[in-house]
């Protein structure tokens, strides 16, 4: 495989207050790969994302993101890593007090000095960048709206536009579509994977809705009880596997309805 992967976890453990949340994860993700992370709630998916972002530190093992050891981030290396990391969360991506244009231009904050960042709040800098990013998510006419005036799906699209402006090398999307209905979710995942394919971005998405797996991702990583349960191509997922992965949660009707090779 790739000798210098975007993400390399080697037997990594994470613990909160003595409780092991991630246990001996070993995982390599290559540049440009599109990976979906699935698993029942409490399996440690969000912690995995925070670990990769360096926001939680491993208690054992090794975690490297974009070739940098996340246990020892400071100064220039920290700044470099954070510029290359894009986040998309379930909610609270946007600053409700700031208009869409400022929220999108937040993608440039890693490159702007403080005076320029402040000036931008009065007179948006590089506004063309925001305009083109917004038209890529079909929200060009919403440049001057407030986030509260947008629907949930539109808000997530604005957050995607911010990622387009930021141009990170790695996007961590933690349940980006859990608050949306299936059709809107498909739209957002479509936008994300299109962004990843076009700009060669490595994409990690934490998914609740398994319907969105097919056709968008190169690999599926399944977590259970803080351990790496299974990984492989999405086509290789089977009903039996899912039943074992989700256990009691699998009773949830929508999981049964997914069309998968039996």
């Amino acid at each position, binding site marked *: 495989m790739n000798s210098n992967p975007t993400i390399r976890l080697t037997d990594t453990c994470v613990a909160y207050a003595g409780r092991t949340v991630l246990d001996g994860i070993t995982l390599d993700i290559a540049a440009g790969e599109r990976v979906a992370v699935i698993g029942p709630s409490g399996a440690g998916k969000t912690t995995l994302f925070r670990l990769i972002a360096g926001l939680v530190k491993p208690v054992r093992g090794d975690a490297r993101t974009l070739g940098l050891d996340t246990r020892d981030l*400071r100064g220039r290396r920290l700044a470099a890593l954070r510029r290359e990391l894009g986040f998309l969360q379930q*909610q609270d991506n946007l600053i409700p007090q700031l208009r869409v244009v400022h929220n999108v231009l937040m993608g440039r904050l890693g490159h702007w000095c403080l005076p320029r960042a402040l000036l931008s709040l009065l007179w948006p800098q590089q506004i063309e960048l925001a305009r083109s990013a917004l038209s890529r998510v079909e929200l060009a006419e919403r440049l001057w709206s407030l986030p509260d005036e947008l629907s949930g799906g539109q808000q997530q699209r604005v957050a995607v536009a911010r990622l387009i402006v930021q141009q990170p090398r790695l996007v961590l999307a933690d349940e980006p579509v859990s608050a949306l209905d299936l059709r809107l979710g498909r739209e957002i995942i479509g936008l994300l994977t299109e962004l990843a394919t076009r700009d060669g971005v490595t994409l990690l998405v934490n998914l609740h809705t398994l319907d969105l797996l097919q056709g968008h991702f190169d690999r599926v990583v399944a977590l259970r009880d803080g351990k790496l349960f299974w990984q492989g191509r999405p086509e290789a997922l089977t009903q039996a596997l899912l039943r074992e992965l989700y256990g009691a949660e699998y009773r949830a009707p929508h999981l049964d309805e997914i069309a998968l090779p039996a």
Partner: protein
Amino acid sequence: MSTLALPALHGKRPWGHFVAIVALLLAVVAAFAAAEWDLAALTDAERRAAAAGRMGAWLAAFLSPDLSTDFLAHGWELTLQTLSAAILGTALAVVLAYPLAMGASRAVCVGEESARGAWRHFPLRSPAALLCSLCRLIQDVLRAVPDFVWAIILVAMIGLGPLTGALALALNITGILAKVYSELWDSVPEERYAQVRGLGGGRIATFLYGIRPLASRNVLSFTLMRAECAIRNAAVIGAVGGGGLGAEIWYQIRFGAWDKVGTLILFTLLLTLTADLASNYIRRQLRGDPNRSAAPVSCAVAGPIEREAVAIRPPRAAWWAAGFVGLVTVWSLWFMGWGNRAGQDGAVRNHLEPALELFTGQAWENLRFFERLLSPVLEAEFVWRVVQSAAIPLAIAVVGTLLGVAGAIVLTRWHSASFQLHSARFTGETPALWLRGVRALQLAAARATAMVARGVPEVMWAFLLIAFFGPGLVAGTLAIALHTLGVLGRVYGEAVDNLPLSRFEPVCGASRMVTYGAVAVPLAWRDWMSYAFFQFESNVRAAVVLGLIGVGGLGFQFSFNFEWFRFERAGTYLLAMILLTVLIDRASRMLRLGRASG
């Protein structure tokens, strides 16, 4: 997906903030045009050197305070006297403000009514409505006349002493508390206590079982803040005859005994900082700790998160608190009357005695003397001069508040625990031990700066700055700015620290400084501005008070005319003070820049 908002309305670049900036600039220009600024005190090299020299001399003296046992004991007695005056004043104010606020609150006093439209604002529509308007008028007058002016009037009635200070504080605080209580009660949504009415409760029952409990936490929290404020004011009201530390400081400044002034300021700081910490602690208990657990707190609203108390408190706690407050009040009363040894040679002097004059009628005889205050001069030419003198406290408040707000915004960057201690949780940094130490030190330094800046009352800052720069607008403005910096530094910092840290995660690699400026500041901005406007209102009143001690303007003119027995003219200036406060209050209500809750 349905688009609720009209794109046509929001398709254009908004200009609101530019309008706000232009309005602010106009206010500043007006402030500099309307008053004569003694900027030479700052620009003239020679005067600057002289001021620096005086500052150095004062600092040297301050660093070697008079620590003789005698003077320390004297200072301690004065500190206790100040404390007892503040407690007595606040206790009295709460007792008076409560019924007054019940009268002034439309929800309590008028209750349900069928009046509609403009008729709703007509005070003569019903007896209850008339009572409500009357109470509001009383509360406005009580609030608009600063405690220092009440003290001047009371000195003439019952003489000098700590009781005068306590009563003056009580009168002013009654007005402030009544206003805020009634606003808090009025702001409780009606549907939340409709059930009490539905059960057949009258207006009093609706108040006791519906409105009062719903607003009680905010009422308590605000009362605490006022009590803290009362302690600060009690420490300086002696300058106009209110006794306590202020009287002694004013006395020693006149003699230039800077070592003694240093000691007394240390005592003041001891008192105000203790009060500051105690009130911080109690208010944290009242609102519950902002959650700082590892789990990301998701919260869509900006600003301080009002959390419901999680634990069901045993009902005893309230009794303990009430008992403690009662005990402290009794102690203050005892101390004011019988425990005080701050007079000459440690002689006990009963400071409560002058109060008897209020009942024997002697004091009211004295008040006769001021009857002429009630017939103010209303010649056009003179009134114009009064209006001009009112521009001076306004100008001081505008510039001082702006400087203070700007300073507080900068200071908050280092005052915030989120950015100094917990930043690794949203940046992923692994700070070295020494770096964490440096940041903790920065935080401590910023907090100490804010604490001292607010712990020293405006009037005391003004004493010092007048000693450095000479009496004038510069000294007054800097005093207001410093105090504002301290007060706002605390609430601004709290507002930022109440934001969930997960808010700062998706900032696309911005440095901590840029994250603060471009993300945290906009998130907290609206809260900050309503705090700032509230502070501006109080700064206008403070600027009037600073006038009394030599900064100039309305306050100075009032005391000058008062001391020369030109009561008719003093009456006009007093009227102008009241109008100024009432106008600003009404303007802020119209702009809906009400007091931020909490």
